[in-house]
């Protein structure tokens, strides 16, 4: 045992393990493990027929980490930076990855991006819908209650936070829109009452 030189014994012998578990020990020899050792020169370059690849055309100023010596030859162009979020992102990329500011700005930009898109979606025929887009419908079609309760699950302790974190900003935004609309309506009704706005 631990307080002596001997390793605590294993209950099953290799033969028993081999019998119980298909394939037990087939990779016992580290030579059969593809990622051992870590660095292994790939003579065939894994199918590449270049030493340095051709460069993808840069169609807009592609943001990049200042820790890179150049723009990489290939890159994604899925969502070019745009709007206020895009400006924050471009600014974030002026800090190296080693700086907390880099990541905190990017995380902040993600939230700004979300709200820019929610607002824009209200000008379209398919406004964002927090009910369908969170997928909560599955709670009713796929055993939301019985999957959770009486199961000793640790995550049930914080799952009540999800509707607050996801829904809270929507409710707050609805409140702002409502009180904004009310004050516009009130001032319009004042305008309507005697033809001109009262001045105090």
């Amino acid at each position, binding site marked *: 045992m631990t307080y002596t030189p001997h390793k605590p014994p294993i209950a099953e012998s*290799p033969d028993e393990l081999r019998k119980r578990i298909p394939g037990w020990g087939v990779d016992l020899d580290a030579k059969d493990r593809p990622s051992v050792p870590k660095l292994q020169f790939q003579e065939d370059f894994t199918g590449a027929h270049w030493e340095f690849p051709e460069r993808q055309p840069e169609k807009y100023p592609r943001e990049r980490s200042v820790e890179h010596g150049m723009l990489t030859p290939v890159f994604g162009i899925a969502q070019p930076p745009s709007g206020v979020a895009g400006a924050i992102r471009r600014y974030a990329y002026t800090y190296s990855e080693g700086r907390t500011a880099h990541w905190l700005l990017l995380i902040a930009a993600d939230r700004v991006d979300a709200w820019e898109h929610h607002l824009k979606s209200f000008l379209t025929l398919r406004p964002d819908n927090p009910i369908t887009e969170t997928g909560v419908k599955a709670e009713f079609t796929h055993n939301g209650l019985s999957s959770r309760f009486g199961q000793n*699950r640790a995550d049930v302790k914080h799952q009540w936070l999800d509707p607050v974190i996801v829904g809270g900003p929507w409710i707050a935004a609805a409140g702002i829109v409502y009180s904004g609309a009310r004050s516009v309506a009130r001032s319009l009704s004042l305008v309507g009452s005697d033809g001109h706005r009262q001045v105090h």
Partner: protein
Amino acid sequence: MRVEEKDRPKTEHPNDAIVRVQLAAICGSDLHPHHGMMPDTRIGHTFGHEFIGVVDEVGSSVRNLSVGDRVMVPFNIFCGTCWYCARGLYSNCHNVNPNATAVGGIYGYSHTTGGYDGGQAEFVRVPFADVGPSTIPDWMSDEDAVLLTDATATGYFGAQLGDIVEGDVVIVFGAGPVGLIAAKSAWLMGAGRVIVIDHLEHRLEKARTFAHAETYNFTEYGDIVLEMKKTTDWLGADVAIDAVGAEADGNFTQHVTSAKFKLQGGSPVALNWAIDSVRKGATISVMGAYGPLFSAVKFGDAMNKGLTIHTNRAPVKRQWPRLFEHVRNGYLKPSELVTHRIPLDDIAEGYHMFSAKLDGMIKPLVVPSAA
């Protein structure tokens, strides 16, 4: 999360291919950007990095693939010839991700991993078509093939990073697809005892049947670390594998500060349990993904115990030749992890179920409507 009509992607580089997706999957990693934990996740981004499909178009320099080929595509985007790729570290490629040097290129996983749209879609742009994808062998099922593009390769790689020797006691934290494959792979490498820890009974059940492991539900013990010491005659395990990552449960403050309020890169509950559960001089393999911000890791214990910590995103293609043999011989049966098949149109519900772990879900596949 919603379904959008987008333009079909175009080749942007002579070695690009466009693949029509036949089958995709949702990975535990997808939950991190879904929950806002992956910085620079832009609205309109198509998620998904586990997929198989048919080559629909090839760029002018593509030699190894032709239109009509059925391919499996590793979740890593990689060039084949940078310093890292030349040495087999495909997940660390330096030529595909301008946004960060600390992580390689990944499909559908924010701009921090390069800004590539992903495979939970009908079509996807596949860069370096001569390097990444492989044609699917005739004998392999589609479900095995799609799970080999990430979860299976990652679990198998995770066991290798544990440097397991014959008779080792191995603890796997997390009974998700990655943890279940890691547990089974630990046996292939000669482990003497494999213990899987989670809090979801349906997954622990799978760990017993699929991975032949002993299981512990951590909610049933006041202190799971102490329990591990007791069951190893007070020595601690020889190897631990973290297959949980950034959204770990088991400590309210750690979980909420990371997954909900983004004040740390990830909740290192499972990693800290791993550090404390192993013996001195042990090895920890970290497959669980963490964000780029700092996390409250018990580094002092790791230091004082003389631990070796091995980590990485899995270099998927490097695992394939050997993994194909294991699948063909029936030693690993990835498709047994599939519990749900979600039509692409119901993707929002699919994510919610996987995230809230409803309905006994272990591995959900995503089926595009055109497939």
